[in-house]
C-alpha cells in the first residue's frame, strides 16, 4: 500500500517523465486534496442483533487510493487470466472474480494479516489480498515453478500464510474454517477466521453442521456468504427455499451487506470482527455481490441470465467505479492520479503475465514431493514397477 507521499511522488515523477523538458509544473500538492470524508453506506439488514454497522463511515484519501489500487489490480489480473485462458496458456478450471472485488478488499481492510481466511475456488482475489503477489498467482495459473504453489495446485489450490485456499469441493472449506477458528480460540491469540462460501454452497448440510458447532463452542469465525445470485447456472430462487442467507445461521446473528460497496463491506466486517473478538461467538455476513464472468471459463454466463442484467450491474453498481466517483466528487483524488494508478497496475499485470508465460514448468524431480510433512524420504511407485520415484517432505 502506498503512502500519500509515495503516491504524490509517483504522480510527480510520471508528470516529469511525460513532459520531457519541462520540470515539475503545476502539480497539485496534497494540500489541494481532501484528507478524508464521510460517506453514507447502505444500512445492513440484521438478524438477532441489537446493533448494526454504522451507516456513516469515514474514509481517508490514503485508504481510498489503496482500495482503488487493490481492486483495480484484482480486476486487471482476472481479465488477464481470461485472456491467457482463451489462449490456452491457462488450462483446467478458472473461476474469475471480477465484479466481486469490494468483498475481498473490504474484508481485508477490517482484519489483520495475522487473522485467518479460507474460501472456495473463486480464490484469486483473496490470494492477492492475503499477501500473494500477482506474479506468483499468475505463474500458478500457468503452471510454472514460480507459482505460489510451485505449479502443483493450479487455480483452485493457492495458499499463503494464514490463507487456506482455494478449495475445489463445494462447501468443504466451511468446516475447515471453523476448525481454524477453534485453533485460534485454543491458542488464545485473539485471532479470528473469515470463512467464505457462495450462495450455492449455502444449502449444503455440512454448513449447517458447522453453524451448530461454531455456535455451541463460541468459535471466533465470521461466516461470509458471497451471494452472487447464481450457483453455477442456478439462480438463488431456483436453489433455495430461503434466500435470506444472512438468516440461515438461525441462532447465529447475521448481517446482509451491500457487497458492491467496499466501505459497506469494510464497516460490516469491522462490526463482525469486534463481535468475534469480544468472545460472543460466530457471526454471519451475507455479501450481496455479482460476478461479471460466467461460473468458470467454460461458462459463457448468458444462458441463465441476460446480458442486460450484467450490463446494468456494471453500469450502476461496479465497485471500482463507485469508489472512483466517491473520491473524485469529494476531491480526494484527481482523474490523472487515478489514471496513473491504472497505468501502473496495467504494467504490473503485464510484467506478471510475462513472467507467468516465460517461467519454466516445474522440474520433474518435484513430481512426488510434498506427500507427507516431516517424514523421511520415501519411494513412490511410478506408472509401472520399474519406475521408482523419490518423495521428500
Amino acid at each position: 500500500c502506498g503512502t500519500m507521499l509515495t503516491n504524490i511522488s509517483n504522480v510527480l515523477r510520471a508528470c516529469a517523465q511525460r513532459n520531457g523538458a519541462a520540470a515539475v509544473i503545476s502539480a497539485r500538492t496534497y494540500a489541494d486534496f481532501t484528507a478524508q470524508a464521510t460517506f453514507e453506506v447502505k444500512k445492513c439488514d440484521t438478524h438477532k442483533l441489537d446493533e448494526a454497522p454504522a451507516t456513516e463511515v469515514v474514509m481517508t484519501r490514503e485508504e481510498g487510493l489503496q482500495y482503488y489500487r487493490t481492486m483495480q489490480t484484482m480486476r486487471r489480473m482476472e481479465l488477464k487470466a481470461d485472456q491467457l485462458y482463451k489462449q490456452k496458456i491457462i488450462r483446467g478450471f478458472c473461476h474469475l472474480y471480477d465484479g466481486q472485488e469490494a468483498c475481498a478488499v473490504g474484508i481485508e481492510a477490517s482484519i489483520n494479516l495475522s487473522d485467518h481466511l479460507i474460501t472456495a475456488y473463486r480464490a484469486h482475489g483473496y490470494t492477492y489480498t492475503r499477501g500473494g503477489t500477482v506474479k506468483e498467482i499468475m505463474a500458478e495459473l500457468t503452471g510454472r515453478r514460480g507459482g505460489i504453489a510451485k505449479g502443483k495446485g493450479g487455480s483452485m489450490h493457492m495458499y499463503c500464510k494464514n490463507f487456506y485456499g482455494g478449495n475445489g469441493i463445494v462447501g468443504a472449506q466451511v468446516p475447515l474454517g471453523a476448525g481454524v477458528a477453534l485453533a485460534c480460540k485454543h491458542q488464545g491469540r485473539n485471532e479470528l477466521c473469515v470463512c467464505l462460501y457462495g450462495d450455492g454452497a449455502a444449502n449444503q448440510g455440512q454448513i449447517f453442521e458447522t453453524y451448530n458447532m461454531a455456535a455451541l463452542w463460541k468459535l471466533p469465525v465470521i461466516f461470509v456468504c458471497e451471494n452472487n445470485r447464481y450457483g453455477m447456472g442456478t439462480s438463488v430462487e431456483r436453489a433455495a427455499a430461503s434466500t435470506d442467507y444472512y438468516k440461515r445461521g438461525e441462532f447465529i446473528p447475521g448481517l446482509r451487506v451491500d457487497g458492491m460497496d467496499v466501505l459497506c463491506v469494510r464497516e460490516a466486517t469491522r462490526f463482525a470482527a469486534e463481535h468475534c473478538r469480544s468472545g460472543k461467538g460466530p457471526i454471519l455476513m451475507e455479501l450481496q455481490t455479482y460476478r461479471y464472468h460466467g461460473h468458470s471459463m467454460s461458462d459463457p454466463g448468458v444462458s441463465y441470465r441476460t446480458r442486460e442484467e450484467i450490463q446494468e450491474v456494471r453500469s450502476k453498481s461496479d465497485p471500482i467505479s463507485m469508489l472512483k466517483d466517491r473520491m473524485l466528487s469529494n476531491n480526494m483524488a484527481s482523474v490523472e492520479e487515478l489514471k496513473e494508478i491504472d497505468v501502473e497496475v496495467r504494467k504490473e499485470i503485464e510484467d506478471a503475465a510475462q513472467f507467468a508465460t516465460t517461467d519454466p514448468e516445474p522440474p520433474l524431480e518435484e513430481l512426488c514431493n510434498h506427500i507427507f510433512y516431516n517424514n523421511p524420504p520415501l519411494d513412490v511407485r511410478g506408472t509401472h514397477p520399474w519406475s521408482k520415484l523419490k518423495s521428500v517432505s
Partner: protein
Amino acid sequence: MGLIETELTESDPVWSAMDEELERDERVFLMVEEVAQYDGALQVSRGLWKKYGDKRISTLPFLRAGLRPICEFMTFNFSMQAIDQVINSAAKTYYMSAGLQPVPIVFRGPNGASAGVAAQHSQCFAAWYAHCPGLKVVSPWNSEDAKGLLKSAIREDNPVVFLENELMYGVPFEMSEESQSKDFTIPIGKAKVERPGDHVTVVSHSRLVGHCLDAAAVLAKEGIECEVINLRTIRPMDVESIEASVMKTNHLVTVEGGWPQFGVGAEICARIMEGPAFNYLDAPVTRVTGVDIPMPYAKILEDHSVPQIKDIIFSIKKTLNV
C-alpha cells in the same frame, strides 16, 4: 446386411441410452446438478429436460419408492460428499432387509483424470466402489460400451455405479447399426476381447483401453501380438475371460488410470493367483497405473502422473523379457 457406420461421441450414446430408457419405462427418472438452464454441466443431459419435463428430470434429492432413478454426479469426485448414501443406503439395503427392499438406482458421471483440473478433481473411484458388495461397477470405453452398458445399468434392479470419462465424451467412434437399436444392451459382468493376440494379455478399462490398442499396434510391427481385453465391468469382474486369455498367452499386463495400491490391477493379480491361470504364467503380472501421488496441475507434471502409451509398451516388453 452391412453395418451403418455413424460416428458418435461417448456423450451422445449416453444421452440416447437415457432418452430411450426414459421413453421405455415411466418409472425411470433423472436427477442431475445444473440440468435445464445450464443444460447439464457437461451437456450430457442436454435437452432431456426439454423433452421430458420436470416430473422426469430434476434436481430432486431423494429416492422415491417404486421409481428407478438415474443420479448424475458432475464428476465422481463430488460423489464423496454423498458416498455414505451410495454405500450404506444403496449398496447394503437389499441385504439388510433380507430381500424386501431392492434399490434399482444408477449413479453415473465422469470419473478419473481430465486435463488440468488438479488434485481434487482427478481421482479414479473404480477401486473404492468396486470394493463394496451390493454394488455393480461399470466402466465403458467407447460409444457402444457407453450406450449398451448404460441401458443395462438402467434396466438392472440393483445399484450400479457407472464410471464415464470426460476426455472420452468428445471422441468419435463408429457405431454398428445393431448398436443403434433401442433394444441394444451389453450385459454387465462380461469383458470383451477388443484385439486378439497370442503373446501377452493386456487388460484395461475406460479410456486406457484406447492407449492399449495403440500400444498393441506399435508392438505388432515388432512381431509382438497383444490380446487387449476391455473389462467393461469392474464388479462383478469377468475373471474367466482374463484367465482364458492368460492360459493362452502366459503373460499378463494390467493397465489403469487409478492409483496402484489396492486398485483394479491389484485385484486382477490376486484373482489370477487364486485361479487356474496362475500355473500358466511365465512371468509375474505387471501393473501399469497412475503415479501414487495427488494429481498435480502443471502440464508437464500431469503428463507424467498418468500412464503413457510408451509406459505400456515398455511394461509389455519387460514382462515378455524382450
